[in-house]
């Protein structure tokens, strides 16, 4: 009999999807189980987050490269789309690398997985607090120190970076610290 696939809307996962990752049903993701590869993915994600958060500086880079305004806009837009798509792809791989443990509901995990998931969220919460504190300092002192002058939509890059950080940080911590996942 066909069993209905339960969707966990709040967590953004499905029962079959999580169980498939937990039970290694797809061998093509085995390379993501190695801690070294998971850590490389975490580093790439962190670099991507920094790149997005610095989106406000990209126009300055465009000016420094002496590109014409038309070419500059194309380069700027394509780069922005590429970085954001790369982040979405990286986030998808990250979820696979940690078997969706950071996103799965309690009923699909065992007690150790729930314990490590909860610990990762606790640390993610602290790290996020420090990141936001750093941004607050940057917003406050940046204009004074000629470091950061947000104009127009510049702040939207910070919001996008924070959104990705909130979504990915627990999985990044799990992927970094767990020897076996």
């Amino acid at each position: 009999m066909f069993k209905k696939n339960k969707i966990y809307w709040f967590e953004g996962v499905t029962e079959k999807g999580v169980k498939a990752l937990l039970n290694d049903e797809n061998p093509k993701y085995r390379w993501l189980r190695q801690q070294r590869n998971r850590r490389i993915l975490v580093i790439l994600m962190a670099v991507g987050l920094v790149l997005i958060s610095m989106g406000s500086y990209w126009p300055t880079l465009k000016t420094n490269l002496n590109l014409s305004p038309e070419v500059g806009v194309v380069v700027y837009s394509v780069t922005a789309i590429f970085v954001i798509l790369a982040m979405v792809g990286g986030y998808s791989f990250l979820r696979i690398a940690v078997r969706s443990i950071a996103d799965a509901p309690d009923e699909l995990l065992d007690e150790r997985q729930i314990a490590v998931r909860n610990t990762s969220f606790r640390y993610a919460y602290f790290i996020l607090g420090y990141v936001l504190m750093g941004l607050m300092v940057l917003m406050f002192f940046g204009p004074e120190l000629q470091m950061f002058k947000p104009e127009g939509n510049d702040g939207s890059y910070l919001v996008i970076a924070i959104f990705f950080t909130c979504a990915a940080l627990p999985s990044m911590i799990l992927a970094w610290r767990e020897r076996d996942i």
Partner: protein
Amino acid sequence: MLFSMSRNPEEPVYNRIEEARTALGLTRQELADKVGVHYQTIGYLEREEYSPSLVLALRIAKALNQEVSELFSQTPFKKGK
């Protein structure tokens, strides 16, 4: 390590899960299925990197036909005992 997985790293819980499991000819996956956990959790338990809850300890003892006190101890087990 950034943070420990053990419930209380100062007070380790030693176990004989691997010995009892292999004596019954069970794989980690088979024991995991019997007690309702992921197979890697059995690995963490056998390496004494994770201390189980009382409920899980009771389920493991039942699956391995042992008493909890025969499987778990706060002092290291003597080899071959």
